[in-house]
């Protein structure tokens, strides 16, 4: 069992719920646990889809910077290995052969946005706030944020998000194509599950736009 994650497997779908109240910030423990969980579930053929969400009001406020910077500077290699492994974990979701869906409400910033962007689909509530505040801490994205974001937008918007630190509300994010569907916040999980069921058989990652158009944008 995990401390920072609620993991549940039900009717072919794996539910990963970030659980470090109040805002599910990602500390070292979270990164170790999600890595271990990823190893387990991505090699399990019973898991046909994954839905990632946050417990409580928010998806996640991103990495706990104080915790992440608390490594011993005399052994930076150890820190480097840790950061590399985190980026790799997010990439494994991105490269998964099964659909990985982020169900977002509330705050989703920094590494949380990196995780959400690494997912194949994003369903969101109206109250979300997205952004990359790293630069204001003299840092930058380290788990693929720039790479996943570049699939959706040009350099100007990238610079405004990553360098200036602009936040996005739901309509701005939807306009950029970062959010595939906006729903009521009490419906996110239900909608994500319905969507997962519609696409997980014979899922083909190349058909992302087709799935979004047929099942998320219709009605």
């Amino acid at each position, binding site marked *: 069992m995990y401390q920072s994650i609620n993991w549940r497997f039900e009717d072919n779908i794996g539910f990963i719920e970030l659980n470090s109240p109040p805002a599910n910030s990602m500390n070292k423990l979270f990164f170790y646990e999600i890595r271990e969980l990823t190893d387990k579930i991505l090699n399990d053929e019973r898991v046909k889809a994954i839905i990632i969400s946050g417990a409580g009001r928010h998806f996640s406020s991103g990495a706990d910077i104080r915790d*992440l910077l608390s490594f011993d500077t005399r052994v930076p290699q150890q820190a480097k290995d840790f950061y590399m492994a985190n980026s790799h974990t997010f990439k494994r979701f991105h490269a998964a052969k099964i659909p990985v869906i982020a169900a977002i409400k509330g705050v989703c910033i920094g590494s949380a946005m990196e995780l959400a962007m690494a997912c194949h689909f994003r369903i969101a509530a109206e109250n979300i706030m997205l952004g990359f505040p790293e*630069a204001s801490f003299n840092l*930058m994205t380290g788990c693929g944020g720039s790479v996943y974001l*570049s699939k959706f937008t040009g350099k100007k918007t990238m*610079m405004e998000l990553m360098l200036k630190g602009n936040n996005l509300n739901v309509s701005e994010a939807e306009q950029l194509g970062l959010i595939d569907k906006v729903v009521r916040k009490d419906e996110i999980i239900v909608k994500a599950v319905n969507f997962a069921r519609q696409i997980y058989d014979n899922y083909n990652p190349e058909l992302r736009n087709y799935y979004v158009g047929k099942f998320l944008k219709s009605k």
Partner: protein
Amino acid sequence: MLKINSPPQNYLKSPSFISKELLYNIADDQEIKGIIITGTGRHFSAGADLENLFELVKYPDILKQEMTAGSELLEQISELKIPVIAAINGVCWGGGLEIALSCHIRFASAKALFAFPEINSALLPGLGGIVRMVKESGTYAAIANVLSGEIFDAEKALKLNVVHQLTEENVLEYSLKYLNSMLESKPKKVIASIMQSIHNAYKLPLHEALHEETLMFCELAEEEAARRKSGSL
């Protein structure tokens, strides 16, 4: 701030409007965190000085050399690790438009005018302008404008993503304000690392771009951790 300075039209005497070395020096200067390219006076630039160009045709090797250098210069601009803004006023034609398109962000006054007039002299934009316009505006718009040589206004340039924003204010001041609010007090290394990760994201294969991003993050994290430890934050 770089000014294309041969008023009134700011014709480009050579395909390279600034030397590569100077540009590298500017970009490496710790004090310089962003660049604005604009034109002296009322216009951005009317493009190549054709007389000069036709003079050069007599020496095909030199012409080729100069054009290649100019094209590489614009590539260098588009890959700079500090933000580059084109502040476009008045006329922005031919080589001037090619320079503008190599900038990361392009702002224009509402009265600015754009064109690729090369076709009128049976030429084509030779500094990467076609490639960049295809990327920004799509193949159709690029073909239409390069083949017709027609002048288009700022509204249309905005629609075609040739510029990102129009302003009624002085475009240079507007660009300055924008750049200042983006960069504020951020260390140069943070700016350069983020810019590099952005360039990588479009250029490198996914796994390489990811790897480079994490490496740069590690460097910043180490420095920030040290800063916090020494309490000099």
